[in-house]
């Protein structure tokens, strides 16, 4: 990716992360749509021998030979039996029955996590710079599990099974399904086994935002990643016949519009169908759009397809207006005709002009790439939000990372829009989603693994979470683009990832497999359900009082019973901190958005005299009364003056 390494401070990472030997031993496995191995992001120049521990393979198949792997791309496998038995044999003229990526998504995520350095990267001139993966010295292994018809759980499980055999260190999964109990969810089941082998599993939180309870991949042994913006934008400017100007975003790179105002029409008035405003295929009347700029509403069909529909009908350009569902969030696309996306407010203002002027006119100017945009990051509207619908006591997402307008490697099989009629071929593409933020964290986790090979997956996640930030440099709280207001831990989890601080967290919250089994006992799983998830008999001790609140998680989600119902109004959480830095005395501070919930930490001071020393504390949350709609947020921070070990708190009623 370009820009995100500097946005994350990785340009000064040499002092914090090993440059070659240790990093070269770390292998990131990516379950996705495969890989386009010829991309420079997978160049192995300067890489040493493949680690002796690596047991993976490079499988041959359609358009892909085992010779495509190298010292960078150390493994490439594909899993299609589940897919083929459900949807029929793969048509090899349409998609490659091999690790070859015909889609682009897998090449993008793999290169984001661990792509090599590529100078002169750009998409049609946009976002130019030096591209690199987060862990650019780590190795990559791809496991193709997603096909044109989707990603099937039998294939995902088979890939995770093989990745564990192969000895990956980090697994990156930018995919998800619905929400089901952990023992029914293949990704949660596979991730549990991976965690037991010391593999960190990073998953995308989902693009179901901004509504609450929209998360996927919420098992506590998974690192769940939401998405935020960068300080980079691709502005485009709309000028209307009434002299008013508006801003939007676009990655259009073809011929400019004529240097004059063009006739302008609302798609809904250039169609005979009721949803003509959406610019669905075949719905525009060519005589009514020819030579004009057409305003289409966002929704239902792909954004780039709307542009293609306008172009096919003879339109000269397109303005794509957000509706309620997307608000002011702007996602840039490499449209096939001059086009820009605009926010809902701008869209409404433009529509007002369209309906008030008998002969409306407009034009669009393209502004290229702009950096230094503030405020940034802001939480992306699409990023899925908590509370966690499976276990409300575990706060998810864990963290946010860059996931909007991310440039990374792309397939040679399709153009940047992915449309069949797009015959452009690009080395890099710019796309958005929690699919893009997840591999950022996977790569950063690989960096931490290289710097601290002895750290468990939970320790790595803890370091990433407790050092994440929730305020801009001016002290103002991170914003949520969906509301324009400060975001909450249900939106950003622990905050935005800060890898330099994560390299030296001071203290960590560690969790081992037995701790997770105790957590499962607290969920009151039956022996059969536990065995399904953990692959062994584990008997919960009937004399022991298990509590979900006792899982040593680096964040706090407190769920009080609804007002009027029975239940204690004091809930106690216990935590254990492990020292991974120098000796020191840490003092706690508690902050909260409301005094209605009393938060007491005991003890208030923890002294560590040696490495790996453990100290425990308890937190009591007391709520005299809460209305059913009130959420309270806060932070619990331990500091020795040099390190700040910060945990978000989210308090709600169930």
């Amino acid at each position, binding site marked *: 990716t370009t820009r995100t390494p500097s946005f994350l401070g990785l340009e000064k990472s040499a002092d914090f992360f090993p440059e070659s030997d240790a990093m070269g031993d770390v292998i990131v496995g990516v379950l996705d749509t495969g890989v386009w191995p010829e991309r420079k992001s997978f160049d192995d120049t300067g890489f040493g021998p493949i680690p002796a521990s690596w047991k993976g393979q490079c499988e041959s198949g359609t358009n892909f030979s085992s010779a495509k792997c190298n010292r960078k791309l150390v493994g490439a496998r594909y899993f299609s039996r589940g897919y083929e038995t459900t949807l029929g044999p793969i048509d090899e003229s349409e998609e490659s029955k091999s690790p070859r990526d015909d889609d682009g998504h897998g090449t993008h995520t793999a290169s984001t996590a661990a792509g090599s350095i590529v100078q002169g990267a750009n998409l049609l001139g946009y976002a130019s710079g030096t591209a690199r993966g987060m862990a650019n010295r780590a190795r990559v292994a791809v496991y193709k599990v997603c096909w044109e018809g989707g990603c*099937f759980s039998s294939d*995902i499980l088979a890939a995770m*099974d093989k990745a564990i055999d192969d000895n990956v260190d980090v697994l990156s999964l930018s*995919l998800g399904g619905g929400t089901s109990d952990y023992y029914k969810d293949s990704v949660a089941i596979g991730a549990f086994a991976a965690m037991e082998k010391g593999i960190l599993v990073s998953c995308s939180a989902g693009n179901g935002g901004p509504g609450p309870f929209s998360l996927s991949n919420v098992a506590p042994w998974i690192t769940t990643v939401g998405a935020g913006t960068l300080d980079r934008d691709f502005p485009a400017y709309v000028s209307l016949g009434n002299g008013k100007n508006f801003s939007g975003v676009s990655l259009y790179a073809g011929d400019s519009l004529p240097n004059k105002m063009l006739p302008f029409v609302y798609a809904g008035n250039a169609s005979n169908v009721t949803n003509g405003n959406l610019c669905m295929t075949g719905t525009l009347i060519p005589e009514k759009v020819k030579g004009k700029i057409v305003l289409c509403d966002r929704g239902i069909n792909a954004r780039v397809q709307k542009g293609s529909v306008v172009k096919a009908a003879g339109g000269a350009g397109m303005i794509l207006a957000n509706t309620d569902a997307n608000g002011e969030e702007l996602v840039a696309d490499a449209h096939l005709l001059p086009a820009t996306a605009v926010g809902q407010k701008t869209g409404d203002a433009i529509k007002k002009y369209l309906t008030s002027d008998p002969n409306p006119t407009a034009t669009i100017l393209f502004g290229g790439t702009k950096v230094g945009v503030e405020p940034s990051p802001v939480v992306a509207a699409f990023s899925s939000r908590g509370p966690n619908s499976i276990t409300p006591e575990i706060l998810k997402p864990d963290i946010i990372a860059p996931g909007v307008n991310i440039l990374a490697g792309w397939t040679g099989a399709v153009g940047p829009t992915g449309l069949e009629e797009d015959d452009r071929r690009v080395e890099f593409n710019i796309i958005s989603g929690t699919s893009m933020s997840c591999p950022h964290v996977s790569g950063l986790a690989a960096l931490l693994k290289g710097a601290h090979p002895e750290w468990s997956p939970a320790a790595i996640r803890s370091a990433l979470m407790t050092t994440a930030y929730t305020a801009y440099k001016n002290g103002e709280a991170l914003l949520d683009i969906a509301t324009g207001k400060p975001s909450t831990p249900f939106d950003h989890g622990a905050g935005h990832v800060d890898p330099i601080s994560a390299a030296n967290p001071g203290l960590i919250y560690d969790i081992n497999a037995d701790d997770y089994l105790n957590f499962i006992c607290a969920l009151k799983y039956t022996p059969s359900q536990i065995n399904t998830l953990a692959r062994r008999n584990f008997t919960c001790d009937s004399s022991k009082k298990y509590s979900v609140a006792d899982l040593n998680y680096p964040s706090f989600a407190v769920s009080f019973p609804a007002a009027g119902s029975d239940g204690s109004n004091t809930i106690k959480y216990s935590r254990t901190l492990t020292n991974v830095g120098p000796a020191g005395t840490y003092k706690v501070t508690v902050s909260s958005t409301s005094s209605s919930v009393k938060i007491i930490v005991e003890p208030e001071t923890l002294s560590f005299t040696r490495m790996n020393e453990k100290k425990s504390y308890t937190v009591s949350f007391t709520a005299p009364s809460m209305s059913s709609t009130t959420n309270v947020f806060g932070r619990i921070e331990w500091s020795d003056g040099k390190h700040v070990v910060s945990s978000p708190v989210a308090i709600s009623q169930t």
Partner: protein
Amino acid sequence: AMEIKKTYIIHMAKSQMPATFDDHTHWYDSSLKSVSESAEMLYVYKNVVNGFSARLTAQEAESLESQPGILSVLPELKYELH
């Protein structure tokens, strides 16, 4: 509708493998064959699941679920890219 085959993930209790089997894959195969002569395994899992995936009718899946040593027979789910 009962004849339509779907993919299921079959989770087995490895500790309940009868002593007559010296290899767990033979036990899996025998369990599968006890409900369907024609069903074939898609994958035998080693690390993530004690079990396998196979195409079964709903009736076969139900029948398999009641066999000794079977923990769960879960229908395949489709996941999507984010």
